């Protein structure tokens, strides 16, 4: 089986992450329960006339995909695989409110077209003129991991050499209101510095796009090797540690081999217990890392955890703001990531320096 490498990264998030020469050099301390992406100058990536017609999710996705392809030093890829929890949500909201407000009259097709979940993947194909395999996964917090798993399979089985994968979601005003109503978004204001310790339900919501080129060959730009990725629809809290142990065993690793664990804590006291289960037991002595206090929570935020892990592996540095505990780890070889959302759609991703 071929090994799978990540040869480039691109991230547009609620932090200034689109410049790959930096690694959270300046951190934005959020002070709200809904935080928006810091966007790059799009005209560097998309002609302004085209950008004006694009939804935010499409713009973020197309720009991030072009950054990733450039860093991998490619002109094109064999396949494009995208993950999105909600697709271009603002257009879905716009089209639906149009239907209701005007009793199904005076509608135009643009927002309907953009509301289709695979719009970002299709637009990237159009921009790159990439006629290869093009899939979009829409499975909650495992949307991106499904794309990662699919790409990894194709490279391992030698069906493709370079694959662009990404996760993208945008905030929509009405949906944000609804998620506040059901307390998936915190009722009270919360900050980057307090989110992880908050004792209430819900999280800080955000948006963004993360794209990567996966390849079968190492090159100068390579960040890491994807050793393994597993997804689970359900898990109970008391099964998590046991599962991690068997996951490590399958990869011939012990707990001590893991230099850092990147966790999806999002400050929701009802569900962070899944992570505490690991940090208080088997990873008690391991460097623990969190990132959602910087990036917020949304269906495709987990690739931002991967972005963090890849930056650590490549630079061998760990910004203080990401540390959940204080360990004196000097070198990073293996990083394990664990994510879930509201107790469902769990993922484990294992990365290794190369």
């Amino acid at each position, binding site marked *: 089986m071929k090994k799978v490498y990540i040869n480039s990264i691109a991230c547009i998030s609620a932090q200034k992450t689109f410049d790959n020469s930096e690694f959270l050099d300046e951190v934005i301390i959020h002070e709200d329960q809904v935080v928006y992406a810091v966007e790059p100058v799009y005209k560097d990536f998309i002609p302004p006339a085209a950008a004006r017609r694009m939804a935010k999710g499409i713009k973020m996705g197309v720009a991030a995909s072009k950054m990733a392809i450039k860093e991998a030093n490619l002109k094109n890829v064999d396949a494009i695989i995208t993950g999105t929890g909600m697709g271009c949500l603002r257009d879905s909201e716009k089209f639906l409110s149009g239907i209701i407000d005007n009793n199904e009259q005076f509608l135009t097709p643009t927002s309907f077209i953009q*509301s289709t979940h695979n719009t970002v993947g299709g637009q990237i194909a159009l921009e790159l003129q990439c006629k290869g395999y093009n899939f979009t996964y829409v499975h909650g917090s495992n949307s991106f991991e499904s794309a990662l798993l699919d790409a990894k399979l194709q490279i391992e089985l030698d069906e493709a050499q370079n694959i662009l994968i990404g996760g993208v979601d945008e905030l929509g005003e009405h949906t944000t209101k609804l998620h506040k109503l059901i307390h998936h978004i915190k009722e009270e204001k919360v900050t980057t510095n307090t989110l992880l310790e908050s004792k209430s339900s819900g999280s800080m919501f955000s948006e963004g796009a993360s794209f990567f080129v996966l390849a079968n060959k190492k090159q100068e730009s390579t960040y890491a090797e994807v050793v393994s990725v597993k997804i*689970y629809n359900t898990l109970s809290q008391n099964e998590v540690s046991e599962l991690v142990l068997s996951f490590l065993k399958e990869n011939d690793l012990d707990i001590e081999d893991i230099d850092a664990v990147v966790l999806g804590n999002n400050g929701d006291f009802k569900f962070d217990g899944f992570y505490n289960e690991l940090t208080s037991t088997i990873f008690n002595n391991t460097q623990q890392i969190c990132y959602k206090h910087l990036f917020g929570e949304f269906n495709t935020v987990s690739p931002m955890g991967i972005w963090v892990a890849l930056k650590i592996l490549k630079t061998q540095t760990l910004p203080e703001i990401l540390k959940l505990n204080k360990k004196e780890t000097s070198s990073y070889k293996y990083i394990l990531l664990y994510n879930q959302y509201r107790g469902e759609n769990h993922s484990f991703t294992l990365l290794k320096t190369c």
Partner: protein
Amino acid sequence: MSKGIAITGMGIISAIGNNVAENFQSLVEAKKGISRISKIDTIHKDEIMVGEIAYTNSELEQLLDLSPDNNYSRTGLLGVLAAKEAVANAGIKDINTYKTGLVSATSVGGMDMTEQYYYEYLESDRNYKYIEGHHAGDSSQKIAEQLGINKSLVTTISTACSSAANAIMLGARLIKSGQLDRVIVGGSDCMSKFTINGFKTLMILSDTYNTPFDENRKGLNLGEAAAYLVLESDAVVKAENKNVLAYIKGYGNANDAFHQTASSDHGDGATLAMEKALQVAGYSAKDIDYINAHGTATGNNDLSEGRAIIRVFGENVPEFSSTKAYTGHTLAAAGAIEAVYSILALQNNVIYPNLNFKTQMKEFSITPQLKLKEKTLQTVMSNSFGFGGNCSTVIFSKEQ
């Protein structure tokens, strides 16, 4: 040549039947399920025709024995019903005996409920339960739960109208690579005001019965449906002495990279998808005995697909027909619906008529199969194309 992946069970609910047997009966009796819309109150009701499923949501809830506080969208309800039939058909008693996953497709997801309560949510908490059922992955999680699939690989694909074909494709690859021993694959989409109005603005809805591959075609009829297949590894088939219904022999996905909603004039993406599928199967064009075409009856699709078929098959185009005149276009479910029809064609050695056809298209000379035809079939090719330039082909075969 790669070995085919065994299909050991199937289930379906569509406008022409509530299970596999009813669907097959309608297909051979040329009984279409297209009518005026009855379950959604839309101002377009006199200008469109649809393929609706007779059951109401509460009838479906009763059939599935759901508690009154459930938050199933109609997509979820239809999906569970079809997936349960597939699992029963495969003779599975305990789903966890083998490593079993689910790959489901949908485009509508929980939009049917969201569009009913969109503003009401702001006024009253009565229907809050549906808020978290909106996203596309929700119906898949519910189907997995109802089938007893826990702690396993469950995911959802949404690539518009090729979604379920892509779910079948991923499922086949998950078995081939040894990630899973067994996987339930398919798709579900219910009717919604959102999709009716969306297709209406694109001006591709017919005001009468849809007529695939007809010169005077006026557009598509929307349909709602769900269908699922059970795929199993050779090891499971052998250990359980399973009856294999057919094999997934080839598959291919390509992107037209032409336009967000229209297909290229000469069907570049469609041609690539068919060629890839033939290549994976180790077949050449002459090995295909019947094509179940995408054939939505829009001006653009049927011309582009017809030309692509000619590009792939040249002078020797096998019998082809679209079954959209029976069911309407069932969007993300279509690839699974037509997979079930393809397998039934192989099992019964029949080719279904392309209903409602009157006038030959002038751009080419190929004509769909117009009468039910008995023919020994070894292979069937099924096409599904979607927005975003997404083109998919799956090839089913009798022999592995």
